[in-house]
């Protein structure tokens, strides 16, 4: 990916890391930054018993995947080369392709693939440790400042 003048990858990673540490809910779920380049962010979270949605199978609740996807998409918007000052989710659709394997961490990768003056368009995928695609997301986000 091409970088705009003055945008260094390390700055973006640092920004994405800060973005996540200030979000109480991201901390509560144990989310951690894997990688960030301008407009593309990867975030992971460990499997935990308390975030299970179906006690029969031990599969994580869909809402946990939503939170992970939403955070990852928001971070992709914030690290976009146009550097919006703020962003908020307008809408987010998640397709649950298959259950994430119980006990495995889930990794999401979001890409802000189009940006206008007011709206950012983002897509994301989530995989478990077996690199199995578990969910995809498509969303639009506000662009502020």
């Amino acid at each position, binding site marked *: 990916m091409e970088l705009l003048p003055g945008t260094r990858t390390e700055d973006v990673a640092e920004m994405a890391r800060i973005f996540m540490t200030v*979000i109480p809910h991201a901390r509560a779920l144990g989310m951690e930054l894997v990688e960030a380049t301008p407009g593309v962010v990867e975030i992971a979270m460990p499997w935990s018993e308390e975030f299970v949605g179906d006690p029969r199978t031990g599969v994580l609740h869909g809402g946990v995947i939503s939170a992970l996807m939403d955070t990852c998409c928001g971070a992709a918007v914030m690290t976009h080369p146009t550097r919006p000052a703020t962003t908020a989710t307008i809408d987010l659709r998640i397709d649950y392709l298959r259950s994430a394997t119980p006990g495995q961490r889930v990794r999401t990768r979001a890409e802000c693939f189009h940006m206008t003056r007011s709206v950012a368009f983002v897509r994301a995928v989530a995989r478990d440790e077996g690199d199995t695609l578990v969910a995809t997301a498509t969303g639009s986000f506000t662009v502020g400042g």
Partner: protein
Amino acid sequence: MTRESVIDRLLARVPYVRWLGVTVDRRGDELTAVLPFSDKLIGNPVLPALHGGVTAAFLETTAVLGLLWATLDGRHGLPDGDEGLPRLPKTIDFTVDYLRSGTARDAYARARVVRLGRRYASVQVEAWQDSRDRPFAQANGHFLMPQG
């Protein structure tokens, strides 16, 4: 087992639903889900506002509760699972519209099962805080019903 007790068991036994702290308010035939505010639910500490993922999780939980409520009305029914719970519907897709920021206070949500088929169900959900006329989020989801 009454559908009231199924709802109570789901709230008590599904770990993430417990973690969120979701409860229900039953008035006659209507089921309202309640999300008590807590700091760990914050997504934007400056406003402060609920995390979009929390809103999505609350809406999805409400959709499943509404689906169970509609299915266990004595005419439909669900196959048994473990721990005194029926087998749960699986989310196929879930789309959330964020209408305004969820603020740092309790939230409420109600689901409407638009279509309940043998295999597939379509559910709409709306969440509000101060006034039901000013929803802060709405969602539409499709679910795969457990097969006996």
